[in-house]
């Protein structure tokens, strides 16, 4: 078994209102920055034990899609950061 460290980047889908992003954008605009489209997301990292990276990717996708995101509102991107020999 090896350990795989993943990073899930979770973002709101287009068209979903992001009041946090809007509030931040308003403040930044008030400070005269030429800024638009501020959107908040989430970054979640986790370690998976698996026999190879195919299995690890499968598990990581399953966990992210089924448990970490709400598919009605959010998209995600998974990145394998590191593979560690156990």
């Amino acid at each position, binding site marked *: 078994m090896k350990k795989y460290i993943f990073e899930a980047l979770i973002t709101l889908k287009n068209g*979903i*209102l*992001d*009041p*946090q992003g*809007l*509030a931040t954008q308003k403040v930044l605009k008030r400070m005269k920055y030429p800024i638009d489209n501020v959107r908040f997301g989430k970054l979640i990292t986790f370690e998976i034990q698996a026999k190879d990276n195919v299995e690890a990717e499968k598990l990581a996708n399953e966990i992210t899609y089924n*448990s*970490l995101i*709400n598919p*009605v*509102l959010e998209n995600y991107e998974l990145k394998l950061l590191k593979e560690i020999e156990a």
Partner: protein
Amino acid sequence: MIKAGIIVFPGTNCDRDAEFALKMAGFNVEYIWHDFENVKKYELLFIPGGFSYGDYLRAGALAKFSPIMKEVEKYVEEDRGLVLGICNGFQILTEAELLKGALTKNKSLKFICRDVDVKVINKKTPFSKYIKKEVLTIPIAHAEGNYYIENYDYLKERNLIAFEYLNNPNGSIGNIAGIYNEKFNVLGMMPHPERNSVKTLGNGDGLHILMSIRRSLENE
């Protein structure tokens, strides 16, 4: 007496109000801790509001993995009774995909706590068929009550909209305050009927919904 079970998660905080209101409506009431799995003996399951699991990850997102939710799913599938989710209960039901769509942050960025007027839309369900009023005044108290669904027509065509706000407080699509599932045995709504169940707490409009549920269950 009709038996109602109030499901309690860590962080639920409207359970006592629910007990009071359900008793006022003539139910026999018990609490069910989320770790327990037996829900079969109840004719109504009440998922109250609050902040289950501290609203971590997303409101309602962690509660859906509690052992009891698998049983609730079966309960709905086998038509064993009715399920009513209020506020965080509604959020849990959408996260568990027992109801369509999702609840996201209020458009105003604010936590809103006040009375709102909602119109009864589908009047033919067990939850609504004995409600005589057209419009009910019921309190809301939420930061994430902005209902969203990609396919709004799906709800409209199947008559799944339970209540609509007269003045949309949170940005919900189509002014939606509450919806049903396709079998009409699950209702989720953001307003809190249990917080206006007697005249001392307002005008008692919330009781109409609970009374309709009880009468429907009795007449089944």
